[in-house]
């Protein structure tokens, strides 16, 4: 069980980093974009999204600033730090290697 949770958490972090990598974006935007880009296959629960964002911010992978969003209240916009970018690159590579390897095994 614990392993599965780790994997999910790691995956969510990767998805968030990737999405934030596209430029400053707020929490709602991240959830929406993941939903859209995964063709509605991956729905991120707010209950996991925000703790993950705060964790990544604490680790120094994300930084945040408050901005006006035209209409409505101020939004908290996240963007990648230098460390976040490095981490994204590494995690992405690792994920692709891993996914590729799993695929190879499954296809054989």
């Amino acid at each position: 069980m614990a392993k599965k949770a780790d994997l999910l958490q790691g995956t969510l972090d990767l998805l968030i980093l990737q999405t934030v990598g596209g430029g400053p974006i707020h929490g709602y935007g991240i959830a929406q974009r993941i939903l859209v880009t995964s063709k509605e296959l991956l729905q991120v629960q707010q209950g996991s999204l925000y703790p993950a964002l705060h964790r990544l911010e604490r680790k120094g992978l994300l930084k945040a600033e408050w901005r006006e969003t035209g209409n409505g209240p101020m939004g908290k916009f996240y963007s990648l730090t230098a460390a976040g970018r490095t981490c994204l690159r590494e995690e992405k590579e690792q994920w692709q290697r891993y996914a590729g390897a799993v695929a190879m095994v499954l296809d054989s």
Partner: protein
Amino acid sequence: MPFFWNRREAELRNEFAHHLHHLRAEYERQGYSREEAERMARREFGAIARTEEQCRDERRWAWMTGLRQDIVYGVRMMRRTPAVTLAAVLSLALGIGANTAVVSLMDLVLWRDLPVPNPQQLTLVHWQGHGFPRDLTDGASGSMDKAGAWDVADFFSYAAYREMRRSAARLASVAAYSFADDVSITFAGRPMVAKAQPVSGNFLSTLEVRPQVGRLLSDSDDVSGAPAVVVLSHRFWAHVLGSDPSVVGRPITIDNELFVIAGVLEPAFYGLAPGDDTDLYTALHHAAFLHSRFQLGREIFENNRYWGLQLLARRASGVSAAHLLPAVDTAFRASWAQQPKNGATAPRIRLDEGRRGLDFLRDQFRNSLLVLGGLVTLLLAIACVNVANLLLARAVARSSELAMRISLGCSRARLLRQLLTESALLAVIGGALSIAVAWLTATLLGGFLAGDRTVPIGFILDARTTGIAAAVTISALMVFGLFPAWHSSRRLDASWLQQRAGSTGLLARRGWSSGQIFAVFQMALSVVLVMTAVIFTRNLMAIQSSDPGFDRRNLILFNVRPGTSGYDKARLTPFYFNLEQRLASVPGVSGVGLASMRPMNIGGWWQEVRLSGRQDHYPVSANGISPSYLDLYTRRLVAGRNFTRADEREKSTVAIISEDLARKLGGDRVLGRTIAMADGPPGAKLPEYEVIGIAPVIAATSIKERPYALWLPFWPAGAQEATVVLRTSAPPRAVLPGIQKAMSEIDRNLPMVDTMTMEEQISKGLQRERMFATLCNAFGTLALVLSVVGLYGVVSYGASRRRADIGVRLALGARPGNVIAMILRQGLAMAVPGVLLGVPVVWLGGKYLQKELTNMKPVDPTTLLLAPGILLLAAVLATLFPAVRASALDPAETLRQE
């Protein structure tokens, strides 16, 4: 912090509000009503509070989870190398423990305030002048010490006390006391000897000590005619009376007078100085022995020429010592019998700091404690260096792991923190264990302080001591933790992988590694400790084996105190004569003698004597002895005759002097001439004695010294107490029961006090030397073990890194002997400079060591050869093992590994 926290909370709420806003807008766009959209948005978002809490957790416990990870990881690393961990933890526990103990003891003796409320208000009342003021006083009891150009003394007449107390009443409470003395007591039919201190009625209330049970003394107890009451120390109550609260109100006999127990002191109060062994406090007016000390009786309360009381004062709040001084000084002058002719040199009051009580222990032990403090600091330094070295070696072994973590994005700071956490873990475990070590050491030390006194000083393991341990631990952590952590994190950069090839390569490294420098440093420190141990052991051995001038085996001694157990002058003479005769007839006893001062008990009755008609005078240790006393020690006199019973009875003014004094006074010609005490009250006739005999030199007061001896006849009618010395023809233990039986036949109610053999008596006087030697040996051994472990670690680590090198040498035909010699050389290359660095340190510290030594130079050729010899031998042994192991390498295998 609250502000910061609130902002965080507000941000969290705003962030969620923002999200909800978008959700609602989305639903509204899809055509739902505002209310419906709001409801659906909320439903989709889920439990806000829970999410908030999760986010908070991510922040709040961030550092904690980090710490937890560090600790878990640290514990795992420690378990992976149990030997290193054990060595490190033990090194620290020993180093920190020894320090805590010594520092607590220094605190207790040198720095701690008396355990009474507002100790800063206490003032010791002294006077300063030039010499003994003969025009003002005929007799004194107390101490007089040089302080710069002044003589500072602590004794006052009762009149002075009364006068000061009266005139300074608004500024301070002045109280009086005299030093404690042995008394014979009987409680519930049980005779024993205790230590009683005469104090003024307001003494305990001035100190603001509280009673544990019953009440303390008051002024109404300290007047003639008041019922005699006594207050017990908590220690006496607990140890002797079994903490029985019902003893209050019960009768107790002190020196044959009936007292009633008024109460018991609170446990925290130990007296006026740590190590104070007072059992009973009695009012001045009821301290019979105080009166007999001056052979004056009640006169001490009226005669203002007898200065035998010590004074202390508690200043009222807001009153400074400077403010109090004039009032006390005026009262002091007013109390004198006459005004001195020369007012400029007359005594004047000085008020000294009293918050820490009396300072006799401080003066006596400051140097010893400083030496011990220095030694344990060195020991801790060795322990820290050892741990640093172990951690350093382990860090190098972990290089690949650490490099891996760095390359995985772990920050340098994070890594430093991890390494520091690991050393902190070691320190905490070591620190916790150190309390046990501290306790053991302090028990030893307590005995050391007590020395020839009878009570050990309890080790007080309280918040202060624990604080000291914590402080020592933290400073140790700084020393041993920071360097390896910094060192290894510094090494770890991107080029580490390239370095790696070189580090295990074929080339021997040039220059000194930090590990090697550490080992040299350790050796230097160890040589200091080992040398100190050698010095003090030799000191003790030299004293113990020194010849006292008589056969120390088969001698028993004990005290009797008939004068305080109901014998009056008329009965004392027959008592002593009967005692000698009765004991002489006990089987196994070959001789019995009486002395007024206990032999070999440090100190004695000191006098200055001169030959009549000559001015040169000499310090002598005087003692009153029965005619058979000298026969116990020596076969015959050098010249002249011994005392007789007639001398004793008639209180003849005859004397026997020691051979060395006789030589000073003119050899045999001194027989028949008169010697006189050189000092005494002015106007009084100085006592004179006819020299009738010359005795061989024996160590009479202590085995450490040979003062000139003056033997006078024992005067039984005036001896309240005496020491009985017996020579036995069989082992003392076998004869003792017979002696005890004879004593109980003489008087069942007369206790034998401090019964022991002469050998025990001598070694009791050497407790301080023995403790010092024991402690120094313990520290020296520890230092030796620690530095040997350190050296072994460095050498075997070095050898393991040079496996390939050694393999090649062996493959090229080097014999195992060559390899052993090579590694031994490397070990000695660290040991020898270490030893050479350490020896001068001992030389520099010699001044402090000298004060602790008797008849010995701190650094002499034997010590100079012995201590470095021990260290070098240990170094060779430490190096030999890795050397032999390296020489047994299989060259083929090592080369294959490369």
